[in-house]
């Protein structure tokens, strides 16, 4: 396969054509913060945490959905990018009632720990929370839409890995929410196999397993693991 040479943060790297900037950076030990990215399923560029700069363009690009180009000069960590990332985190935290102190995910949440890592110490955006439902009907799975950041990891893992597409998004704007089957209660969702993959990959306290410590439910490697095993089975 054709390979592409570029620089990331001044370091020369060479990767196969078609690789995303994020994968190219990761393969070369350069860490870019992400939230919606999940190894093993398709990227969709929703959270905007992985923003990078490309020399010659005034715009910023999501590293997870932008493919590398010959001779590209990528910057992953300028002051402007840090500022934008903090802003994106503040927006995510302001959009819904993210009250960490009373959340099941407190201490085991990717959003919370990224905010801490990047130094988000205030939420300056005005908040106007929608009133969203919590579904407690399933025997062991719970969805609390008030904590959801709409990263769609659950939807993608249910569709692409479990292969049943129980979950999807409904409505627009701040009312957007994850629904189960055609907006059914989880108990009545006949397509759901109860595999828990959605709970394993949800980065926050939105989907979880009743009565189980979140830290033990989480396994964001699950999609990557299954895809790799499937691939090796065909080789």
């Amino acid at each position: 396969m054709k390979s592409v040479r570029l620089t990331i943060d001044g370091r020369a790297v060479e990767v196969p054509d078609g690789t995303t900037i994020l994968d190219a950076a990761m393969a070369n030990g350069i860490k870019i913060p992400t939230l919606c990215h999940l190894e093993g399923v398709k990227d969709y560029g929703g959270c905007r945490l992985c923003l990078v700069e490309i020399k010659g363009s005034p715009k910023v690009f999501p590293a997870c959905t932008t493919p590398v180009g010959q001779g590209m000069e990528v910057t992953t960590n300028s002051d402007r990018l840090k500022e934008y990332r903090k802003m994106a985190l503040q927006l995510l935290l302001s959009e819904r009632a993210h009250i960490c102190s009373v959340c099941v995910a407190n201490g085991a949440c990717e959003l919370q720990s990224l905010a801490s890592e990047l130094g988000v110490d205030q939420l300056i955006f005005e908040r106007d929370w929608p009133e969203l439902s919590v579904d407690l009907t399933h025997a062991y799975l719970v969805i609390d839409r008030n904590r959801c950041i709409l990263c769609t990891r659950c939807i993608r893992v249910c569709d692409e890995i479990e292969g049943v597409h129980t979950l999807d998004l409904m409505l627009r704007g701040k009312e957007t929410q994850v629904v189960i089957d055609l907006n059914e209660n989880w108990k009545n969702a006949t397509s759901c196999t109860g595999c828990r993959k959605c709970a394993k990959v949800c980065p926050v306290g939105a989907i979880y397993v009743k009565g189980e410590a979140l830290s033990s439910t989480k396994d964001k490697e699950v999609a990557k693991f299954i895809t790799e095993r499937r691939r090796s089975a065909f080789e």
Partner: protein
Amino acid sequence: MNKVRVATIWLSGCSGCHMSFLDQDEFLMELAKLVQFVYSPLIDVKEFPENVDITIVEGAVGNEEQLELIEVARKRTKQLIALGDCAVHGNVTSLRNALREGDQAVLKRAYLELADTTPQIPSEVTPLLKKAHPLHEIVEVDHFIPGCPPPASLITYVLTELLAGRKPEMEGKAKFG
């Protein structure tokens, strides 16, 4: 040497942030050499004084009395610190903001629905604001120390930096919840 004049205020919070402040243990001795406490729920001063260097505020602005106090405090203070999640972003205090008529809803729940005997909403206490507000929605805030409660070590860090005339660096240190 003139001591730095420090005030602490307790608005709609659980006092956990003040407990964390006290948890600074022996640092309080160091602090006492440098600062004078001029107003606090821990000392008996009725009026918020003039000429305060640093005011540390716990809790969200939830009622009319608190609204008045925070505005006076801001006018009389050089540097205002929001201490803890309630002051920083509203936290549990602001959960009522998600409800329609949230102020009435919490009063009804607390005093009528959960009353064992003679349910009634007290009429002589200061009225609740429609919504509970984090400090920055009402007044300008100079420093934020998130956490529920913020760890004592983080309070010590921020105070040490401010007393030394430096700007606290919160990357990797600030944490909600």
